[in-house]
Every structure is written in C-alpha cells, then in structure tokens.
C-alpha cells in the first residue's frame, strides 16, 4: 500500500517556505540549470497578472513589472520533502 501527496507548485512552495512574500507579490520560479531558463511555476498573483509558464524572466516582467524571480533550490526541495514525509508518516 502506498499514498501519494500532491503539492501544487511544490518547487515554488519549497523555495518560498522561508521567504514568504506578501500576498500581493507575483512570484515566478525558474530552473537555472537549463540553458535557457524559463518560468516553470507561478504563484496565483502572477497567473492573474498574465504571466505564463514557459516565458523567460524578461518576458515575464512584460505583463507584470513587479514580478519576483526565484530560482529552484534542490536543498530546499529535499528538506521540504522530508518534512512532508515526516508529517504523512509520523
């Protein structure tokens, strides 16, 4: 038997766990390891503003000039995953 935990925008949430932005801040996440880094995940404010996944950071600031760009963090994803597993299987 196994269970799956679905966390929407997990990579973004992992990065923002210790840097919670104000509710009005639009945030986009990029993966710096890609040759051409594009936005892979967005928070609801950025989505509402018209920023789309697949845009480059410079394209993202077109619809939303105050867009905050964050980069994926493997370390933060790992620690968040550990916390999730610990909470799910105490």
């Amino acid at each position, binding site marked *: 038997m196994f269970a799956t935990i679905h966390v929407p925008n997990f990579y973004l949430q992992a990065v923002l766990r210790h840097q919670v932005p104000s509710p009005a801040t639009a945030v986009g996440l990029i993966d710096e390891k890609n040759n*051409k880094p594009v936005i892979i995940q967005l928070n609801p404010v950025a989505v509402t503003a018209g920023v789309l996944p697949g845009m480059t950071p410079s394209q993202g600031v077109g619809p939303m000039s105050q867009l905050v760009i964050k980069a994926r963090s493997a370390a933060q994803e790992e620690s968040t995953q550990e916390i999730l597993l610990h909470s799910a299987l105490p």
Partner: protein
Amino acid sequence: MAVIDSQIGGGLPKGAITELISPHISAGSASLIAALLQAAWSGRYFLALVDGRDSFDPHPLGNSCLRHLLWTRCTKPIEAIKAADLLLRDGNFPLVILDLVLNPAQELRKIPSTSWYRLQRLVEPTSTALLIVSRRSMVGSAQMKLVLENAWSLPTLEQANDLSRLQIRVQRSQMGERTIAQAEAS
C-alpha cells in the same frame, strides 16, 4: 550610433564582449549609456542594463525611452554577473550592458576570470552584444576594449550635442586582428 560607429569603425560587435573602460570620473560613461538607451528607443529594440551599483539615474530619459529598458538593480558585482548570465541565456536582448564602473576595485578583483569566459561562451552563439563598463581593464575575454578619453566638466555638459565630442580610443580589437589574419591567409 554615429559616435561609436565613427570611432570604432562600426557598431558594437554581436556575439562578443566589448569592454568600455571609463578610467576616471566624468569620462562620459553615463552619457554613453543614456545615448545607447535613446538609440534603443528610436530603433525600437529592447536593451538590458545590469546596474552593478544601483547608480543609474532614469529621470532625465523620460518614460517613453524607459519602456525599452530592462533595468536590473544590483549592489554587488557577483549579483550583477549572475544577472548578466541570466539575461544572456534569456536571449531577448540585442544589447546587454553590464555597468560595473562604480563598484569598488577590491570587490571586482574577487570576480574569477572564468566568469568572463563563461559570459563570452554564453554570448558567442547569440546575436547579442554585451557591453561591460568598468573603471579599469579586467575582462580577459573581451573582443574589443574601448577607453573613454574625456574629462567633462559641468560647462561641457551644458553645451548642446555634448555626445558628439566623445573621444573613444580602441585599446584592443581582436575583431580587427582576425580580419587582418583572415585577409593574410587568403
């Protein structure tokens, strides 16, 4: 831009780094950046300015001109290098300016030379021109090095068309050497 075209025999090379050395205060680097912005506006293309010391003053340029600018405000050289790296990979700008002219020399010395070669590798396959503005020569991978030879005073800046008096000396141009080498080989 006529000023650059006439003094270096053509515009800034695409797919290469040009280092613009502004050896002292009031040598004209800020005026040149403003002129490049105005050229971007009149040519209807976008330009990215990575401001290494958050020193750019957008006020004199006007809103219409600034619509063609992506201004990245940094405080440390390492942040500026990272921003330039990202913008070059972004690939949406024909010109990226990395302004490090006001960053302290001791901070600039900490930038490993490999960073400049990385930027060169990133810009090479693109049609982007990367202009690095610095106080002293430091970019080993620059294809062209230009030196601003001006000492402007307040009365100079009050005169009309001050940019036409801008003196630029070409310190090194690998582009020229290549052209000569190619001509000799053929």
